[in-house]
């Protein structure tokens, strides 16, 4: 039984047919072909699939696509504007906060959700914001440094 849903992703309107059980992560990846959102565990533990759902970071493997009908989604593809990297992306690059790159989109989106609140976060707040995002390569320190640096330059 397919349902038609419409939603906004990265400022663009999309609609598509999904089964009620289709995960939002799979809808974004397989139907909309926005493959920047990654899947690492599909039980909400690794955070690679983190996106912004109506402004809040959520793990898109824990949401059915139908739940997001009519809503606003931002994925990693929506960070750079007019061919210019977002300060977070610049800071991740500069601080070597990336190795294999698989957890990176989720990390960026969790950090983006934090910085979107508009206040300069403390180190503890940064850590809390990405505590649900696992990275096996970098050991996190460069990621924390990158988010700190981006927080200084960030304007929403």
């Amino acid at each position, binding site marked *: 039984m397919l349902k038609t849903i419409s939603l906004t992703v990265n400022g663009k309107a999309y609609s598509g047919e999904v089964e009620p059980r289709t995960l939002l992560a799979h809808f974004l990846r397989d139907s909309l072909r926005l493959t*920047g959102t990654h899947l690492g565990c599909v*039980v909400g533990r690794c955070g690679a699939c983190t996106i912004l759902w109506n402004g809040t970071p959520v793990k898109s493997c824990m949401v059915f696509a139908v739940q997001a009908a009519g809503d606003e989604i931002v994925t*990693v593809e929506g960070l750079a504007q007019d061919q210019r990297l977002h300060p977070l992306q610049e800071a991740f690059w500069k601080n070597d906060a990336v190795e294999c*790159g698989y957890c990176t989109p989720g990390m960026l989106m969790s950090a983006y959700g934090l910085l979107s609140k508009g206040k300069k976060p403390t180190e503890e707040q940064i850590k809390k914001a990405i505590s649900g*995002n696992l990275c096996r390569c970098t050991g996190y*320190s460069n990621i924390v440094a990158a988010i700190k640096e981006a927080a200084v330059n960030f304007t929403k």
Partner: protein
Amino acid sequence: MASWRLGASRFLFLVGGGRSKNLRSLRNTKNTKLNITMDFPIHPPIGERVRRKETLRFVTGTGRFVDDLLPPGTLHVSFVRSSCAHARIKAIDVEAARAMPGVCAVFTGKDIAQHVKPLRVGGSSVLRPVKLYPLAVDKVRYFGEPLAVVVADNRYLAEDAVDMVAVDYEPLPVVVDPETAMEPGAPAVHEDAGSNIVYKYHFATDGIDKVFQDAEVVIKERIRSHRITACPIEPRAYLAHYNKEEDSLTMWSATANPHSLKGRIADILSFPEGKIRVIAPDVGGSFGVKIQTYQEELLLPYLSRELGRPIKWCETRVEHMRNGRHGRDQIHYIEIALKKDGTMLGIKDKIIADMGSTYTVDHSIMAAALYMTGVYQIQNYAVDAFGISTNKTTHGSLRDIGKADASYVLERLVDIVARELKLDPIDIRLKNFIPAEAFPYRNPTGALYDSGQYHLAMKRTAEMAGYDRLRKEQADLRKRGIYRGIGVALVMEPTSSSRIHATGGYASCRLRIDPSGAATVFSSMGEQGQGHETTLAQIVASQTGIPFDRITVIHGDTLPTPYGFGTGSSRSSVVLMPSAWVAGKLMRDKILGIAARQLGVVPEKLEIGDGKVFAKEDQEQSIAVMEIVRTAYGAIHLLPENMEPGLEVTGYFVNPNIDYTPDDKGRMNTFSSYPYAAVIAVVDVDVETGMIKIVKYTTVHDCGNMINPQIVDTQQQGSIMQGIGAALYEELRYDDEGQLLSSTFMDYRLPSVEEVPELALEHIITPNPFTPLGAKGAGETGMLGLPPALCNAVEDALSPLGVKVRETPLTPDRVLDLIEKAQAKSAHA
């Protein structure tokens, strides 16, 4: 608060002038066939913290991983997996599954076995190799083993149909404990192997028993390293596409070993290897786990050929925990002979390695057995190592394979000895370390350590950590009931292993400067986060003067790249990077040769810089590199005599210090470089909750020259965090029935950002004399240090309670259990 002492506070010991001496003394050491000079100049951007080329696509979400690929007409598979750890398959009923909507086909192991050849797996110390089929045929040997496969229109429908497959099992006795499995009469995991002892290795130096008889002190211990796995955040993923018109096969695989995989697919399908192309696109981490060939990986090409459609499988995390290769899990019965003053005289070890069911490689056994004397001047050594088959998931490569077990057991033992002899753990190490002037050093098994300054590294670590002050603080804190511990270790990592037919001992890069003046490097090794696109470009830029931004690195695709072995054993910097250096040198020679003819100056008097080749003595005498490029492609009458047109070269590098066969006493060197790290861990143990807090972790690391110090630092940080997981949180636990109890991230806990301790990291640079870049392997020593240092620290913290740490990981419940046991013992006493 987490902080890394990096950048400006870095402390470097630059050691120069030692190489020629090292090479001279090397010629006098046994078993060495070397007569080479490695004194090559190294110029920027080698050694610079250049930011990584590959990062741009990862931060924009435009990386391309296997699961991101979806060719039209792709079918998806899901596997029926064994719910028993050991059982005969009586029957599999697939009819209901076949009738499910969207299901295209269902195959069982029997269906497949008729059409493929099994993969023969083993290793040099194997007693009897076994045959590995893509799906279990007559019986299953571990929980989660694939025994049937469903092919359907999408992954949801495939999983639905898997649930409809009914398997009738005849349960067999399960054996999960390797020591039980060794006993005569234990249930046979492989009946045709004759015994569950599937690997055996013995080595002994002359007179070892006499050393132990005469020793003033002998200390014996049983120490076990526990079973863990790598857990890259990208699970395994494969996509096979058979093209009927061309009768060719393309396989996209999240593999760290594309060229070897190509050969294996050709073997099992009896398909011409030249018609197979394996592409490892972006791969989301490996840490060893993706270097080996898996059952599912061999099956997909068969299914695609059979069904004429692209076939894709992306592993779930639960499948990864159950079926991805496992690591560690060795029991060591180790003895050390000493003088009363702590001088180490000899080591005897018996290793029992749990290889799981379908044992595939023996690297873990060999890498442990050859290095149990570690960083100490011990020339008396004996080992009996046994690889045991059990009803667990297959054991295989995992960051620090075998070496982690060796360094953990040895560094634990040294600490236990220090406590017994009432010596300071740093003093006993300093007393016994191999001195810097003894390198290159042969250990008793013939392993040839390239270089090292262990004393300096240990002393500097102690200085950074404020060791003497820490001991005073510890005494004060104890009075206040705070259990603070200080753990010391110096861990060494044999890197760039070379075994016959397994890992090669060489690598290559093809280098092309195209008519536009841009360069492309075709690397024989893939990457899974190591940053080769950056470091290879740094090397080529350094040699040829082509700007870094105009160099592209192609890797992981078997069609354009030269043959090579997988990315493992930290071999990139030891063998791949030097091959790019050689390719760059060949290209440089060609450029200078062309310039020499045109300028009328001999090549030796020419230099490359700022897009020109110029005479060193008169910079006005110059020619643009672009002019040379145009000559090479379009004006070949201006080339020197006998020079080939075009600008394309292939550089090979062979590790010069490898022995492929043992000498008459069984000695050989199978690894090419030996990085190491000294560490001091400070912990507080909460005796009420069993929680361990890492107060500070200090380490001094030596991987020789660093091609890109930023990349080394980041890898080292990640490696340290993986070590924290291994020591404190992660464990693959099986129950007596062989069911895996920790198969999700809920019960197999990876460290998060919350667990990052305060860290201080510095480097010593002792160049490796056996590569032109002076680099050793990097990225693995971090993980090595944590298990011994943290266990030593916890035992130190709880020494007033008499706690002995012999089991890991040190989860809160285990720590409480250890305290309880120690208290019960002292009450009993």
